[in-house]
């Protein structure tokens, strides 16, 4: 059967898949809900400051059995554009 499936040890696949599944089981948050939360967050923040929506990362981090939502939102350097353009960054 093999070479296609043999590339990665199956135990590693099991662990990686379980890591994701357990995050969602524990928080009751589906991947789709996490995406829509991310969109909402980007929209809200964009109303106040200019950010690059593509650079935003939002993940669930865990420490033992407790989990945290960690957002990393790089800010654009002020200079080439001042002032806010409402509604622009929602994409």
């Amino acid at each position, binding site marked *: 059967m093999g070479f296609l499936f043999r590339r990665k040890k199956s*135990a590693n696949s*099991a*662990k990686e898949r379980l890591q994701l599944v357990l995050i969602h089981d524990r928080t009751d948050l589906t991947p789709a809900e996490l995406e829509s939360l991310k969109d909402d967050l980007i929209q809200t923040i964009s109303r106040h400051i200019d950010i690059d929506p593509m650079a935003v990362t939002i993940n669930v981090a865990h420490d033992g059995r407790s989990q945290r939502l960690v957002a990393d939102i790089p800010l654009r350097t002020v200079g080439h554009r001042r002032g806010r353009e409402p509604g622009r960054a929602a994409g």
Partner: protein
Amino acid sequence: MTAKVVTVASGKGGVGKTTSVANIAVALASRGQKVTCIDGDIGLRNLDVILGLENRIVYDLVDVIEGRCRLRQAMIRDKRLPDLYLIPAAQTRDKTAISPSDMVRLCDELRQEVDWIIIDSPAGIERGFKNAIAAADRVLVMTNPEVSAVRDADRVIGILDAEEKGPAALVINRLDPAMVKRGDMLSVEDVLDLLAVELIGIVPEDENVIVASNRGQPLALEGKTKAGQAFQNIARRLMGEQVPFLELETQNLFQRLLGRK
């Protein structure tokens, strides 16, 4: 005497709860402890056959709770060990025949009589499981090194935390060191990373488990097999002893031997 109540639960079915309850109870009793095990799997009675006591049942758990017999009358004494008893499950009833508070009351009465009460939980996270953990001082969560069993164990651990029955102690059953070695089975470290709980036992895959269940003679009665030894070690850890983990040791030894070649 004030017994400690230990429940064995798992979420997923068939991971080895009943096998473990029988062996841990036998192991504790072989160390001079007075032990009663309770089959909490009402409607799917099994602990009796694993212990080889199926022919001696007169009364069961539901009979005690509904007052048809006294507690003592439902406790079947195992003749191989001086102080091992079984309270069997009812076979013709279901889990709704008893409630969590019934279990608390029963265990409170029993606590005066023995050192340990070991309860076999049914699979799942519903009524039968809730009954089984109601009186527990300590819950052992069983899993196999396998995706669905680990996932379900995580659910159970979460529920135990939420109901303040935690922290759970984990037993990893049916570990196959050769499969772990070639990367085709989650290792003990992997499972502990994922579940983030305390480990209390590692039981290897061992065909003697099936031989023992055929005979109705739990492995821990002799303690010569690998799995039997692993159950003895769990019993010792429950009693507060520091016992090194069997399988981890042999794995390290194996690695050392390979390394020297």
